């Protein structure tokens, strides 16, 4: 990659994640406005916009930019489930690298229904048969992780306690209150082994970034570089894949979509998992964080319980995971969640995170995975 084609982050912005009276458009406006302001970019200052959303409906991105009086350029809405924002980021970065644009706006905005998410992914008969039960699929995956990696319910509870402790220092998080193992385990069982507190809440929010060709960045600044942004779907075979099939093979060697995306992202960035100083990973449920660590190579296969036990993934440890509090603290607005992770990591690399700062972080990884399957991995360096 030549210097002229590398991509830097010129500005970031957030609308907090939670439950609000604001519309999808309102929240997108807040995030986009603050990212543009940080980047010093106004009307006519970017040549394309990519907007991630899953429940926003027709022309979500256009509605946000119309409100800001900034239209005329291509505006592309992107749905890739939990990885919608990662998909938007991949397309924006690729367009800059290809020389098509020099400055691109990427944002995600979402207002999720409450409770178990009704997904148009499922056929009507699957709903009728009770098989559109997303938490049950999380639970089946969690149970297998318990079998293969020595994960216990206590580990699952401690993932929640860790992330909620991190989230208590994040003003953009939905839950800013710490919890305890006892409190997590006394919340009701949704799908054994997962209790209510081990599942993230679908919610609302927005996040935005301005990406720019690196040679256009101000020479007196040290911007964060977008070293890679990769999206992958699944290779069929695993019945537990986020592709949510009704059958799979007994062959356990099929790589997970996360592993496919991570392998490509490490190669593109020229780094390995051992180089990662801080990570924001998909923690839709507590077991998902542990599985994500294994699939990303942050520990050996089967080593996620030991990784948690070692304290490495807690703030102050060797590789803090979800210093923002993760989706377990922030909640999950599908179109915005991946970009919310990236905004957090940009702020970590700029050392702007105050009490939840990961000291000396230079290389950061963001990961989302969800239905499709869609797996997105982004690597940032400074």
């Amino acid at each position, binding site marked *: 990659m030549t210097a002229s084609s590398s991509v830097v982050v010129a500005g970031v912005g957030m609308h907090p994640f939670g439950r609000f009276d604001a519309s999808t458009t309102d929240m997108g406006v807040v995030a986009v406005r603050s990212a543009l302001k940080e980047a010093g970019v106004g009307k006519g200052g970017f040549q394309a916009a990519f907007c991630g959303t899953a429940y926003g409906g027709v022309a979500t991105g256009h509605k946000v930019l119309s409100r800001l009086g900034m239209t005329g350029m291509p505006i592309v809405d992107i749905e890739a489930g939990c990885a919608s924002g990662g998909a938007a980021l991949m397309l924006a970065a690729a367009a800059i690298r290809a020389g098509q644009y020099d400055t691109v706006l990427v944002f995600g905005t979402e207002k999720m229904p409450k409770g*178990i*998410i*009704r*997904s148009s992914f*499922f*056929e*009507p*008969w699957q*709903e*009728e*048969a*009770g*098989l*559109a*039960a*997303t*938490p*049950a699929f999380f*639970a*089946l995956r969690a*149970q*297998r992780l318990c*079998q293969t990696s020595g994960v216990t319910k206590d580990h699952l509870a401690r993932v929640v306690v860790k992330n909620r402790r991190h989230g208590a220092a994040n003003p953009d998080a939905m839950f800013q209150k710490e919890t305890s193992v006892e409190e997590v385990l006394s919340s*009701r*069982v*949704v*799908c*054994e*082994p997962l209790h209510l507190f081990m599942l993230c809440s679908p919610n609302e929010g927005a996040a935005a970034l301005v990406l720019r060709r690196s040679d256009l960045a101000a020479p007196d600044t040290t911007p964060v570089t977008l070293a890679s942004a990769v999206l992958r779907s699944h290779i*069929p*075979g695993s*019945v*537990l894949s986020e592709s949510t*099939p*009704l*059958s*799979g*093979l*007994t*062959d356990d060697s099929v790589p997970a979509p996360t592993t496919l995306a991570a392998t490509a992202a490490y190669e593109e960035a020229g780094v390995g998992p051992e180089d990662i100083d801080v990570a924001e990973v998909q923690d839709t449920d507590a077991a998902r964080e542990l599985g994500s660590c294994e699939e990303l190579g942050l520990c050996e296969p089967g080593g996620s319980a030991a990784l948690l036990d070692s304290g490495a993934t807690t703030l102050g440890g060797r590789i803090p995971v979800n210093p923002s509090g993760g989706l377990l603290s922030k909640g999950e607005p599908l179109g915005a969640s991946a970009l919310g992770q990236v905004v957090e990591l940009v702020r970590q690399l700029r050392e702007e995170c105050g009490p939840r700062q990961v000291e000396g972080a230079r290389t950061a990884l963001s990961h989302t995975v969800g239905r499709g399957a869609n797996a997105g991995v982004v690597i940032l360096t400074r």
Partner: protein
Amino acid sequence: MVRDGLFTEDGALLGSKCTNCGNVLFPRVDSCTYCATEDPAPVELSRRGTLWAWTAVTAPPPGYQGEVPFGIGIVELPEGIRVITRLTASDPSSLHAGQAMEVRLVSLHSDAEGNDVVSYAFAPAAAS
């Protein structure tokens, strides 16, 4: 029947076997998911298998009109596949890994005309 073509009237699951790679798929497909070969051969799947993973759903998922709790699990069949299925057992602590299971038909709920809507499910196998 919750959907035509999923299972026979006496409960056998209907799958496909690829004529090229030999993998077995459920439900039936037009093209092999694994190697993209068209027109895999229709097959009836084994009625017995072993339990690989299981849980119970405690709150009605979207679009579901039946009773809760109910079991969902994954059963391994001798064809070398794992199938997502309802379970007749709704108490996870009553089940164990590797347990022998067999397929049967269960009533989900009654439709507007009062007819039972029927689905496949796996139950702990009777001793054979």
